[in-house]
């Protein structure tokens, strides 16, 4: 058996613990899919794998127990999924073209969740279209609101939906639902002054609890969709850490631009001798300094007026 493990990894298969057997990873950008795709997943698992799947922590299906020699057949079988899930692909019937940049994950978003500030899956797919396929080890995740069910702060790029709440004071009846909700469930950015909530703009995280809890539509959402962009969180063996805020009240276009810019930055600065060709962007930023990163990242970005950019980020986290 002669297998180029580097090629198979790029092809979204993986070297498993079981000699001679691989696992196929089916990415679902944004985590939402039509159930019509399930029979194909089942078929692949039954026909080529061991009849089981793992739901991955990146919102995909991992089909284990596939003999290496079945990879071309699995790739053929994957074609309808790759097309159906709208994965960018260079050549048909050859499976996934790259696996470096990980599946763009998203919480269920405002399709379903009352808290979500936007359509997470739609934005995830937009990013997917902009960046894939790519071999660099990037992790992007989207979450609908600051509850962060998607744990975006453990990703390189964490995108958290926000709304800039708008108060119509003439509809406010001073029931304090917003103030109480903000205090109990969020950051306590509201206080009552003269029978009306006053928002601490600096503190406000744009979660929308005030809007959700206002019984009289005095608080409504901003027409514009805003996001918090967090940077370079990670798990891992050296220094797991939370992503830190880069820009608060940023817009979709800027986020996509910043991500694309970061690909350029990493391409320019990555350590070519990094094990497995993988180097977490954070270590590269350590090397070049944050300012250099920021210079590349912000190239050509036009931020919305409300945007607040962090001057310089200092990460902490656990250091082993």
């Amino acid at each position, binding site marked *: 058996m002669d297998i180029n493990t580097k090629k198979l990894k790029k092809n979204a298969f993986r070297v498993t613990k079981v000699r001679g057997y691989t696992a196929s990873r089916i990415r679902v950008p944004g985590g939402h899919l039509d159930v019509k795709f399930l029979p194909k997943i089942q078929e692949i698992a039954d026909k080529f794998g061991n009849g089981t799947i793992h739901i991955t922590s990146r919102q995909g299906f991992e089909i284990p127990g596939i003999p290496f020699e079945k990879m071309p057949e699995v790739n053929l079988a994957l074609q309808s999924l790759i097309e159906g899930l709208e994965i960018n692909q260079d050549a048909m019937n050859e499976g996934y073209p790259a696996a470096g940049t990980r599946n763009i994950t998203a919480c269920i978003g*405002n399709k379903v969740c009352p808290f979500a500030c936007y359509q997470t899956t739609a934005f995830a797919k937009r990013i997917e279209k902009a960046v894939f396929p790519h071999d660099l080890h990037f992790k992007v995740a989207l979450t609908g609101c600051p509850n962060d069910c998607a744990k975006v702060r453990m990703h390189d790029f964490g995108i958290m939906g926000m709304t800039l709440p708008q108060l119509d004071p003439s509809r406010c009846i001073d*029931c304090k639902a917003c103030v109480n909700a903000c205090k109990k469930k969020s950051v306590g950015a509201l206080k009552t002054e*003269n029978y009306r909530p006053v928002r601490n703009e600096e503190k406000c995280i744009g979660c929308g609890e005030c809007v959700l809890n206002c019984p009289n539509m005095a608080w409504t959402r901003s027409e514009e969709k805003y996001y918090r962009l967090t940077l370079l969180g990670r798990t891992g063996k050296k220094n797991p850490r939370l992503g830190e805020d880069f820009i608060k009240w940023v817009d979709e276009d800027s986020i996509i631009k910043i991500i694309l810019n970061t690909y350029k930055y990493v391409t320019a600065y990555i350590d070519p001798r990094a094990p497995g060709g993988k180097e977490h962007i954070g270590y590269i930023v350590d090397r070049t300094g944050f300012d250099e990163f920021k210079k590349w990242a912000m190239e050509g970005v036009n931020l919305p007026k409300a945007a607040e950019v962090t001057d310089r980020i200092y990460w902490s986290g656990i250091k082993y």
Partner: protein
Amino acid sequence: MGYVLTTKQANEIFAELSTQYRLFAPKTFGNEGRYSDTGCVRYGEVTCVEDITFDKKSEYSFKEAILPVMQTLFYFTEREVTEPKVDDKKTMIFLRSCDIHAVKRLDEMYYKNGPKDYYYSLLRDNVKFVLIGCEQSFENCFCVSMGTNTTDHYDFSFCKAHDTYEINLKNTEFISLFEKVNASVMEVKVPFVTENDVKVQIPDGLKAKVTSSTIWDEYDSRCIACGRCNFVCPTCTCFTMQDMYYTDNGKVGERRRVWASCMVDGFTDVAGGGSYRKNYGQRMRFKLLHKVYDFKQRNGFHMCIGCGRCDDVCPEYISFSNCINKLPEALKEVDQL
């Protein structure tokens, strides 16, 4: 008397009316729903027929047009008290049959319960009502049960029929309005709902004693006391006074009244810390019996008009109509005590 209008004619009429009236109608506030990417149908000023949302029930009722959420009673400077100026434009409200019945409830409170209300009169005395017909019942409506599904108390009706608008004129002072645009005269019957999916039966022998039933207890945990049911209700009339001084000049301020909710904390708080109905179930009981029992005791007809807005809006999916239908059971329970 009836007319059929093209959209163009209808908008000419709107333009004409707008010179004398502020036109209040249900309209869709595109991005102002509670949840992202949702809208909200509620009352607002309209200037053309396209502004009006005909095919949905408004989440909030017309009442804010004559009973504003917040109303300044007077301004005070150091020792003076001054009433605010009132817009002398008249108001025209587009509303459905049930809501026209609600107007009667508002009037009952503000014209008759105690002295006639000065501020209510200021607005209410200048209102014309335009009836929107109901081709079919909406979810949660139980107007038929409450006998509010039909009405004659309107100035004219205004119903959307495909791409025309049909008018049934009651108040002849508006004849010239329609003649002016050469509206086609036609027999127009206002559509009224004759049956709802939801039906309620208020038991005949209902009495205050049901207060002690256990049916209210489930709402202790289910209800979150947010008050949405009151705010969307076209018959809820409670308010609270607010005295405030302006941040910029502490010597000047105003007294105003704002909507209050019997479901929300603080409604019964008296100076010194006392309060009543701490359990949310008891608030539910208070509200419900007001709507379908004691209002009628006092005034001879039920307060509730069966619009179902309280059910539409409840974030906890508590159904008012469903609770009404538990009353026989409650009666049976308390009769056995």
